C-alpha cells in the first residue's frame, strides 16, 4: 500500500514535469521571424580595437578654464547617455566619465616632489575598455562582454546585479544602480534608454553613436584633446599620436591592457 502510493506519486510527478517541459518547448518554437531580417548599419564605424588617447597638453593651462572644459565633456557624455546626476546617497553615485587627481588616477606612481602642473591638475577617467577585461572574466551571465571591435559592452537586459564585475574592475569604472536612476536624469535623451535599478552600468564608448557614424560624445566635445580611433590600424590618427608621444596607461602591471592612453 505504502510503496504503491509512493510509486503513484513518483509517476504523477514525473508526468507533470514532462508536461510542463513540453509546453515550454512548444510555446518557444511557435515564433518565427519573417526571414533573415537583421543587417548591419552601413554608416557604422568599424575598428579592430577601439582606443582613446587623453592628451592633457591640449586642455587649457588655466585651472578654472580647464575645469570648465572637463565639465563640458562630462556634460556631453551625461546628456547623451542619460547618466544620472546628484543621487541622494553620494557613495552610490553613478559615473561614466569623471575627473580625479593624479595620485588617485595613477596610485603607486605618485612620486614626492611631483611636477606642479601634474600634481595640481585633475585628469579624466573612464572605462579603459581593456583588452583582457577582468569584469568580463567574472560576469556569470555574459551581461558584460567584449565586442569584436574591443568595446567592453553591457547588456542591461541580462545583468542580474550581482556586482561581481565591480569587484573585478581594478579601475573603479563600474557603477551599480542602487536606486532607480530615472528621477536623477535631467532632460532625458529620447534616442537612448535610461537604466533601471539593480543593474551595473559604465561607459560604452558611445557604441550607439559609432553605429550612426559619429564619434563618442566626449571626443566630439573635447576639441581634439581626446583622440579616438583604431589601435589595430597602423595608419590611424591615434596610432600616429601614440608613435610620436610618450604615453602612460593606468595599472598596466595588472595585465589588463587598457585601451585608454594618457599623455601627461
Amino acid at each position: 500500500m505504502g510503496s504503491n502510493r509512493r510509486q503513484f506519486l513518483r509517476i504523477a510527478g514525473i508526468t507533470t514535469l514532462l508536461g510542463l517541459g513540453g509546453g515550454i518547448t512548444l510555446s518557444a518554437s511557435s515564433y518565427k521571424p519573417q526571414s533573415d531580417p537583421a543587417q548591419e548599419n552601413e554608416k557604422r564605424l568599424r575598428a579592430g580595437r577601439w582606443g582613446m588617447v587623453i592628451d592633457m597638453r591640449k586642455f587649457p593651462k588655466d585651472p578654472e578654464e580647464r575645469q570648465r572644459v572637463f565639465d563640458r565633456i562630462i556634460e556631453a557624455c551625461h546628456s547623451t547617455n542619460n547618466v544620472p546626476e546628484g543621487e541622494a546617497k553620494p557613495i552610490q553615485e553613478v559615473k561614466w566619465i569623471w575627473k580625479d587627481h593624479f595620485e588617485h588616477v595613477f596610485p603607486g606612481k605618485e612620486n614626492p616632489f611631483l611636477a606642479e602642473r601634474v600634481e595640481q591638475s585633475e585628469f579624466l577617467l573612464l572605462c579603459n575598455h581593456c583588452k583582457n577585461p577582468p569584469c568580463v572574466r567574472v560576469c556569470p551571465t555574459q551581461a558584460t562582454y567584449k565586442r569584436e571591435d574591443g568595446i567592453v559592452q553591457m547588456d542591461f537586459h541580462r545583468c542580474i546585479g550581482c556586482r561581481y564585475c565591480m569587484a573585478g574592475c581594478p579601475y573603479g569604472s563600474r557603477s551599480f544602480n542602487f536606486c532607480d536612476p530615472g528621477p536623477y536624469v535631467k532632460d532625458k535623451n529620447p534616442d537612448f534608454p535610461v537604466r533601471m535599478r539593480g543593474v551595473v552600468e559604465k561607459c560604452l564608448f558611445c557604441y550607439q553613436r559609432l553605429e550612426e557614424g559619429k564619434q563618442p560624445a566626449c571626443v566630439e566635445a573635447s576639441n581634439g584633446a581626446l583622440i579616438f580611433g583604431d589601435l589595430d590600424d597602423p595608419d590611424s590618427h591615434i596610432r600616429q599620436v601614440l608613435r610620436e608621444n610618450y604615453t602612460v596607461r593606468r595599472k598596466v602591471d595588472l595585465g589588463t591592457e587598457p585601451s585608454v592612453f594618457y599623455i601627461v
Partner: protein
Amino acid sequence: MYDAGKILIGLVIFLLLLTFPFWFSLGQASYESPDLQLPEDKEECIEDTEWMRKNHMQLLDDWRDTVVREGKSIYIGKGGKKYDMSLQKTCMDCHTSKEEFCDKCHNTASVDPYCWDCHVAPEEVANGQQ
C-alpha cells in the same frame, strides 16, 4: 480508504479552487480588444498588423539581442523596407503615445512589461518629467 469523507470534501474544495477562473467570470462581459490610437499619417507598420499583434513581444526581444549583442541595427521589414531596430527611435516615432497605444492593450490584458523602466516614452520628454 481511511477518512473517505474528509478526502472527498478536500477534493471538492480543490476542484472548486481549480475552476475558480471559469465560474468567477460567468456572466461577466467577454473580452474586447481595446481601440488603439493608430498613427494618422502612416500607412503601414514594419510587418502586418495581425503579425505584429501576435509577435511584437518576441520581435522586440529579438531586437534587443540583435542590436546590443550582434551589432546589427537595421531591420528588413515587409517589402524589403529598412528600419532602425529601436523601440524609442522607430516604434515610438509613429506610435507617439504610450498611453493610447501600448498601455491600452497591456492594461486590459493585465500584462506589465518593464520596457519603460529604462526606455524613454515620447510624452515623458514632452512634459519633461516622468
